């Protein structure tokens, strides 16, 4: 397959012209077209306006491509609007902030350190399958508070549990995940522990305990929302540092810049391209009429290159001081997994800086998404990288 950008770490902005001239793009999807909003201001305004632009519609419909025909389970709190959303989200908030705790950070640093040690030992690895998928899976055991060994099962599913290559959801692969979650819920019912399944099964909302279906809806989202996004963020960050060795050097000298670097890499790569909403009534966005019950999408990836807010939007400025990106969404649905994802990426950057001198990219194959007139590079199907050890440090 052809790679269309000049360098592995270049992620072109396919939306620029449409964003500046019209402000939107149109995508056909299973007879349920989507109006993609491309400007930062429109994306934010629409994300805030849940009365007019709804998430709590038929399950699967706010996802593009639509998953309506292949799932019934409502993902929680993602496919809800206030006031239900507020109640369910509040239930989850403190659990998903556990990555702020020192013991969580120490455990994660241990995992990352072992993985980096092993890739340095191997020398050359295929980063998506041998590092990014492994790191994403192992880190998720901390977020769910389950044994590390569970990661082996998830790694065995491969990189596309939920989606095969940007096409409509692969229902056979999806059922692997559904069946697995069902089994885990059974286990937690029989023998409650301190894992997320057990905690959810004991939680209350709407004046009753959560139903099995609801617990399942939270868990599916946790697995699906945090998989490709994290894998792409890890892989793309490695490609960037391989092609910008002075930036790796800088992270070594000034590890305190890692936090800003993570925000900038998220802005530039925008691992989640866009997410839909459904108009509640006939309305208008960006001077364009939107019919009731039709779909719009909030294009985080385009908004993050909006030159009216970001200076040099197509450049990675690793220490960008003002960086109001929407890579993790905006408003009440903003990413619940962001604390975890940020920690994973920050730990990765600092560990690479302390153990790796340089990285060399060998061959790679880009992963491009096609959205109507827009072709967007989102990551890699595979990328071979050689990791050269830092001498003074084992």
């Amino acid at each position: 397959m052809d790679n269309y950008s000049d360098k592995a770490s270049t992620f072109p902005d396919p939306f620029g012209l449409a964003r500046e001239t019209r402000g939107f793009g149109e995508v056909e999807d299973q007879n349920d077209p989507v109006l993609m909003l491309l400007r930062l201001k429109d994306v934010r305004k629409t994300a805030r306006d849940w009365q007019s632009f709804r998430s709590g519609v038929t399950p699967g419909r706010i996802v593009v491509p639509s998953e309506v025909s292949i799932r019934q389970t409502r993902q929680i709190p993602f496919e809800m609007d206030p006031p239900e959303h507020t109640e369910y989200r509040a239930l989850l908030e403190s659990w998903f902030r556990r990555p702020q705790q020192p013991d969580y950070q120490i455990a994660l640093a241990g995992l990352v350190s072992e993985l980096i040690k092993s890739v340095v030992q191997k020398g050359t690895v295929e980063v998506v399958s041998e590092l990014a998928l492994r790191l994403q899976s192992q880190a998720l055991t901390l977020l769910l508070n389950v044994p590390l060994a569970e990661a082996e099962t998830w790694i065995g599913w491969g990189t596309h549990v939920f989606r095969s290559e940007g096409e409509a959801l692969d229902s056979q692969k999806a059922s692997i995940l559904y069946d697995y979650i069902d089994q885990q819920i059974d286990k937690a019912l029989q023998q409650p522990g301190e894992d997320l399944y057990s905690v959810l099964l004991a939680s209350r909302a709407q004046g009753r305990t959560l139903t099995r279906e609801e617990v399942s809806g939270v868990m599916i989202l946790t697995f699906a929302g945090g998989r490709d996004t994290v894998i792409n963020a890890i892989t793309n960050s490695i490609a960037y540092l391989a092609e910008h060795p002075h930036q790796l050097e800088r992270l070594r000298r000034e590890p305190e810049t890692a936090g800003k670097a993570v925000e900038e890499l998220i802005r530039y790569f925008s691992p989640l391209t866009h997410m839909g909403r459904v108009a509640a009534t006939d309305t208008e966005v960006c001077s364009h009429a939107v019919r009731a019950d039709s779909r719009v999408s909030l294009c985080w990836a385009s908004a993050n290159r909006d030159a009216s807010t970001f200076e040099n939007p197509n450049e990675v400025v690793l220490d960008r001081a003002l960086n109001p990106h929407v890579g993790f969404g905006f408003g009440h649905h903003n990413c619940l997994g962001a604390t975890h994802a940020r920690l994973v990426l920050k730990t990765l950057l600092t560990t690479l800086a302390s153990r790796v001198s340089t990285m060399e990219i060998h061959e790679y194959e880009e992963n491009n998404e096609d959205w109507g007139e827009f072709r967007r590079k989102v990551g890699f199907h595979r990328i071979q990288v050689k990791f050269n050890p830092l001498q003074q440090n084992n």
Partner: protein
Amino acid sequence: MAKITFITRENETITTEAAAGTIMELGVRQGVRGIDGDCGGVCSCATCHVHVAPEYMAIVGPPGDIESDMLELNDNVTEYSRLGCQVQITEDLDGLVLHVAR
């Protein structure tokens, strides 16, 4: 040194002192509930939103353009809203009182 008081949504009062850094960093360091500083201070998360006591607003100053855009349409924005990560602590802020926004 500037003496700064945070009042949380639960009406807990935390008074502390600082010479430098931002209001967000101070709040996070002191474990002030509701000041999370998720994005580390790059103006992307609004988890550092505070309401400045009106009598201090002139000293603290108004938000910048990018900060205003972040706050715009926020359900809890008022004319006294600031993002804590965009407010540098100086001696002039001595006595400042801040309410953590919802």
